[in-house]
């Protein structure tokens, strides 16, 4: 139980073990622990950021969807108005065309009537002369009675 060289030996061993621990054991373990802690903290922060991003993206998607719907509705409305307008225009055109055709037909008829009247007038003069010849028994000089005949024709 006396104090011997063992004390010195143990002191030397103490320094050697502490030195080995300080050089080879403590740093790698604590560094790995610190690095892991940082990794976990980063991971958690990233997850939080991601969930925030997701929330934002969802909000943006909802907004965009709403916009798209509104736009689509506007487009449909415009198309409907355009279609109605086109139908209206077509109707208008058709009506105008119809009126024009009717007018042309009416003019044709008028022309035909006039021509028939003209022909009839000539025929009346001839017939009148022929009738008169028959009545008088002699030829009527058409030239002499031209004025009379024209007058007659005008009265028709």
């Amino acid at each position, binding site marked *: 139980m006396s104090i011997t060289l063992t004390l010195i030996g143990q002191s030397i061993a103490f320094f050697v073990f502490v030195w080995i621990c300080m050089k080879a054991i403590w740093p790698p*373990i604590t560094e790995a622990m610190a690095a892991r802690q940082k990794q976990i903290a980063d991971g958690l922060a990233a997850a939080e950021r991601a969930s925030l991003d997701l929330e934002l993206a969802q909000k943006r998607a909802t907004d965009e969807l709403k916009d798209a719907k509104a736009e689509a509705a506007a487009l449909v409305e415009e198309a409907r108005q355009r279609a109605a307008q086109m139908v209206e225009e077509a109707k208008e055109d058709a009506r105008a065309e119809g009126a024009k055709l009717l007018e042309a037909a009416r003019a044709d008829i008028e022309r035909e009537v006039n021509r028939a009247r003209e022909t009839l007038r000539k025929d009346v003069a001839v017939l009148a002369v022929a009738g008169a010849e028959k009545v008088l028994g002699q030829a009527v000089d058409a030239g002499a009675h031209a004025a009379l005949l024209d007058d007659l024709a005008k009265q028709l």
Partner: protein
Amino acid sequence: MASGGPLTAEGYIQHHLTNLVYGQFNEGHARAQAGCQEHCVAVGDWGFAQTAEEASQMGFMAINVDTMGWSLVLGLIFLFIFGRAAKQATTGVPSGLLNFVETIVDFIDDLVRSTFQHSGNALVAPMALTIFVWVFFMNLMDLIPVDWIPFVAEHYLHIPFMKVVPSTDPNITLGMAFGVFMLIVYYSILKKGAWGFFSELAFHPFPKWMFPVNLILEGVNLIAKPVSLGLRLFGNLYAGEMIFILIALMYGGLVMSVAGGVLQLAWALFHVLVITLQAFIFMVLSVVYLNQAHDVMEEH
């Protein structure tokens, strides 16, 4: 037992408290004197002491091979376990061993952070870890039944003495405390300068003109640190070991054997607390002393 004589309680206890000593024989040894009959040695020879008396006659020039050897083995076990963990250290998912080691490292790290208030010392935390685990391992040897290893050593290896608990040897505990003391002195001088360290011892707590009194007071205070550190651990573990030995003496006869078994179990369970606590105290005080060594006192 050692001498093969009749087994007495005194002899049994004596045997358990004797170290295996390798040392230098001097004139006082019977085997080195003229009338020696067998196993004679010359004065100045080195060899193993065969009896407790021989061991104590060797004086300072001797090594307690058993406690020193177990201390080194346990220290190497510590380095091996923690070194393996350090090699495995990864930022990924830690394995079983690394988990265990990290728990201890984290515990020590927190403790040193809260106790040691000076930054930039890379030695204190690893030193605390080494002290805690090493002392714990040395104390843990106390829980091995007292006769197992000495019995094997004596009957199969023919080693006469075998003290297996290094921390029941004051050389070991004071040796570690001396190591801590040297660190205290080293850091005191490093941080305060030789004059600063001296003035802390000489000009405090009384005025400067009373410096001899101060020097004595503070000197005792300084020396008391390693001495109390080493002797506290030694005393606790020596007492614990002693009780185990005394309980072991009870065996023989049914009633006494049962009582001895119960007592041994109870004491061992209580001792689990003691060995952990003593390792912890040794570590914390070492850190506290080193923290004080770093404190630069304001002028008085």
